[in-house]
């Protein structure tokens, strides 16, 4: 039976035979969603450059994906990816990294990439915690939860990432949980075809660290929690803030057209060349 090969396996480096995530980690669900999006869009791995930061989620493409992969420093993948995209505007440049990586230390690069509307597809794994370093508070950790760095309950408020990135200027923003792998795949596909900055926020389970901190429990319990607390954005818009407390608003937050940076550069250089002739 084990001769069967997973259909998405063809996108992986042959020598990488196992993932390094903990049992039940949502990162694997996102891995599949990304690869399935690529498959459904009929793209090749050579069309891609994957860029990631540091953290469990940053190991999604690195070293698993059989493509050009830039595994960068903590918090900086978007900044690196900006250089890659400007250098290779015709490639799909996808950033995959964690909530800590992209919104704590890397928050500034994220909002500026959204502002610039540079054509990156960012898959942001929001597990509400710092997984890799052992369960510290992330900017996404709900207020009141006791993590290893907030043992008396976090005193800070958390980011609502998707709408913040909308207000920073992104062209496409969607949020889904790992309980929504099919919608997630669709959103990634949309992000990949978008000419502009696309953020796909994936609310995901870290059963080991977040499960312990939140006392929600294991992978299945967190997935159940996602299921029962998700509210479609269309519905959420009609609810009042009090009702939305503790809910996870999912869906598409924005989807607009506006000039994308790398193509603006291509245009400018082209027009300078014309002007010269």
């Amino acid at each position: 039976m084990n001769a069967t090969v997973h259909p998405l396996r063809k996108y992986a480096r042959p020598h990488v035979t196992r993932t390094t995530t903990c049992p039940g980690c949502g990162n694997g669900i996102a891995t599949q969603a990304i690869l399935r999006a690529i498959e459904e869009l009929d793209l090749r791995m050579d069309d891609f450059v994957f860029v990631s930061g540091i953290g469990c989620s940053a190991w999604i493409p690195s070293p698993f994906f059989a493509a050009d992969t830039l595994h960068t420093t903590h918090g900086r993948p978007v900044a690196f990816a900006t250089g890659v995209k400007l250098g290779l505007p015709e490639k799909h440049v996808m950033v995959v990294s964690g909530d800590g990586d992209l919104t704590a230390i890397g928050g500034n690069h994220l909002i500026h990439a959204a502002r610039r509307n540079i054509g990156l597809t960012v898959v942001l794994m929001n597990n509400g915690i710092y997984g890799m370093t052992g369960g510290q508070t992330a900017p996404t950790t709900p207020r009141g939860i006791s993590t290893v760095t907030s043992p008396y309950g976090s005193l800070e408020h958390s980011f609502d990432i998707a709408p913040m990135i909308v207000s920073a200027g992104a062209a496409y923003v969607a949020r889904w949980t790992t309980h929504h792998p099919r919608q997630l795949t669709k959103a990634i596909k949309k992000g990949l075809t978008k000419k502009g900055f696309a953020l796909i926020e994936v609310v995901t389970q870290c059963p080991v660290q977040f499960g312990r901190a939140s006392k929600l429990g294991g992978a299945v319990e967190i997935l159940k929690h996602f299921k029962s607390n998700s509210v479609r954005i269309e519905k959420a818009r009609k609810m009042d803030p009090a009702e939305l407390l503790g809910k996870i608003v999912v869906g598409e937050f924005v989807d607009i057209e506006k000039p994308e940076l790398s193509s603006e550069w291509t245009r400018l250089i082209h027009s300078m060349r014309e002007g010269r002739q």
Partner: protein
Amino acid sequence: MIKARTALAGTHFDMGNWACAEGAIAAGCNFVAGYPITPASEVANYMAKRLPQVGGIFLQTEDEIAAICSVIGASWAGCRALTVTSGPGISLMQENIGFAVSTETPIVIIDVQRLGPSTGVPSIGMAGDIVQVARGSHGDYQIIALCPESPQEMFDLTIRAFNIAETYRVPVFLMADGFIGHMREQIIIPPADQIDLVERRVPTVADPMKRQDFLDIGVAPMPVFGKGLQAHVTSSCHDEHGMRNLTEPAVMHRYVMNPIQKILTHRDQIVEVREDYVNADLVLVTYGTVSRSARAAARLARNQGLRVGTLRLITCWPFPEEAIRKAASRVNNLLVLENNSGQLYPYIRAEAAHASRVEFLGPQFLGQIHDPNAILEKVKEMLA
């Protein structure tokens, strides 16, 4: 070696920062990312105008960290990439300078140094960053740093910086300062066909597990992105294929030491010095702008019958040990002059103290290069 495609040939009277930017253009630079900072801003400002004219891109980033990151990203995307800043920016870039070293990414970093520490005095030059560029990122590594002394050399050495960066897959620093960055002098730009450029070597085998992409002391070809090479680039400890390995001490050792050895074994090809101390009783050891004071002082001294020579380190990193040892073996007195409190002085003494007397003289006021007369006085004291 190929020839430059474009160069603003002719004689110019302009600032060092301008010369540097034109040097980069001549060197085929087609991606610059930077964040404004005095006294380096003119390089970026000028590049913003100049690059699109030659098909290049200028990105003004949100900060210096993003600047170096996007430059590294662009280098992997196949660009000849440069960033320009001053000390505060170098400090912010330190983490990702280490990333460039560890991923063996060719980039050029222009440091137009200013008086510091910290905010200090933006418009005044100083040689305060000469050790920080080599030792300021964590862990262990080697970079290359070149020290121009004039606007002309800001042109010449910027081209050289690109060439060595590509040859050795390493960040190369041009250690200018606010003084020559803003200094205007005659700058002679040769025609493009007289400028030699090093082309990047790119592997042809498609499977990274069948190539050596990293940790080659002889310098591996660079598996740039977008060519179907499936490059795996990480600054986490990795093996020759770029694959992460966080458990094997032997791999860790190679991970740290091979990029260091890559530079040190090529020290002789990289290092450039200017020696002028035949029959001298004392040699003035300098780098950067102070070298001009040193030559003026040596001339003054010789006019007074004192046998004073000069040794100028054009390359400061990798440290020119051999040149220092040679000077120490021939001359009994070394006087080190730096526009700081003596940052390279210990490195020089380390190579020379066994054979010579080595002393240090800073300028009267840090930030203002030495008055040749003050040097002369110290020389007399040492030779008395």
